[in-house]
């Protein structure tokens, strides 16, 4: 199966309908998050391009799971000091993930994994960035306008950082404490019960003692972030966590079999 390289190719592809649906879903998310507003192109400002990236997502057995489209800004044309400044964003260390799972075992906790849908669109941009309207979705009668970006769209250099700032703010406002040893580990209490969190960009591992708490945690987050949660224990398709009588295990799976 061929993945189209841009909107035009998707439009001409034999799987046109599937790709167009995927692109429309992506556009819906972008609209929902008020990712940009249309403005007159400001004189002398750089207008960044974009591209629709199409991907066939496979499940752990290598079967087609879904058709995905993602609009990405062409961040390579951003200029330091004008369209971006700081770009660092932390990710959790392997040691920390294992330490968390280890402690979860010791405290007899449950482990859940969550994934934030279109995570980056929650990040708020501080810089003024203008982008062309995406191919195929140029608004009628407004062809000359450009997008003034409000949210950290995928592809911008500062996007991971913007997203992390928002997530961090949110977790801290929920009473979670950021670890001094690893910026991506958070600890806190809900209903007096211990909750441990590890953040890997938009993947979050949660350890908690009661399953009811996980429902509460999910409820307190989705208003802000749209979360997808897995109740079977898969972490980034790399680990399958299995729970047998208070034993947590980590076993490599899909990665290995593929390579």
């Amino acid at each position, binding site marked *: 199966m061929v993945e189209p390289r841009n909107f035009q190719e998707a439009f001409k592809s034999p799987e046109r309908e599937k790709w167009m649906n995927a692109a429309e879903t992506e556009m819906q998310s972008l609209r929902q998050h008020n990712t940009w507003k249309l403005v007159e192109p400001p004189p002398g400002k750089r207008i960044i391009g974009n591209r629709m990236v199409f991907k066939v997502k496979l499940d752990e057995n290598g079967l087609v799971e879904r058709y995905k489209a993602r609009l990405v800004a062409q961040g390579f044309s951003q200029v330091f000091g004008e369209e971006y400044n700081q770009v660092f964003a932390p990710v959790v260390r392997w040691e920390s993930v*294992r*330490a968390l799972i280890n*402690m979860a075992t010791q405290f007899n906790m449950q482990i859940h994994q969550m994934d934030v849908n279109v995570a980056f669109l929650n990040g708020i941009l501080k810089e003024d960035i203008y982008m062309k309207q995406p191919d195929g979705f140029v608004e009628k009668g407004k062809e000359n306008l450009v997008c003034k970006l409000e949210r950290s769209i995928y592809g911008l250099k500062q996007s991971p950082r913007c997203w992390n700032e928002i997530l961090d703010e949110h977790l801290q406002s929920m009473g979670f404490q950021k670890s001094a*040893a690893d910026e991506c580990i958070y600890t806190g209490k809900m209903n007096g019960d211990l909750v441990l969190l590890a953040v890997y960009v938009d993947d979050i591992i949660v350890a908690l003692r009661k399953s009811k708490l996980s429902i509460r945690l999910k409820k307190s987050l989705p208003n802000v972030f749209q979360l997808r949660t897995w109740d079977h224990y898969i972490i980034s398709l790399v680990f399958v966590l299995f729970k047998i009588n208070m034993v*947590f295990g*980590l*076993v490599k799976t899909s990665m290995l079999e593929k390579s």
Partner: protein
Amino acid sequence: MRNLNELLKIFDKMVYQSAIGSLLYIANATRPDLSQAVNRMASYCNEPTSVHWQMMKRILRYLKGTINLGIMYQRDINPELIAYSDSDYVGDIDTRQSTSGYVSLKNGAPIAWKSKKQEIAAQSTAEAEYVALFYATQDVAWIRNLLKELREKDQRATIIFEDNQASIKIS
């Protein structure tokens, strides 16, 4: 235009480097047993030859045979953090650097591990092992802080096991 041989060589190098990339990921994620071998192989990334490919294939065969190995933490099995440290002596005969490593365990399985070529050229096995202890101690101190934040109670002093008598006496 590049000639065919040159292109093949570049391609060969690319495949080698990408294999190393995959192996590093596996070694860092759940396979401390691969750590040393992969770390060593990674130092040949820039000019891999048929010898290195032989070694690479050996690692891959080992992986295939042990594909189901993983890490399993068990409650109430040695909840105390412990670590083992070791080093070779002049593993790299060109620079006379030694390679050392450590693994730390808790609840019956490893939490952290590392294999690293030492920055200095140790003058004796005692020195090499002492430097190994230093690397281990550094990371263990960090893990202890992390565990404390993850609500580990009453941590006792972490024992780092070491088999070189001279370096034990030094420390």
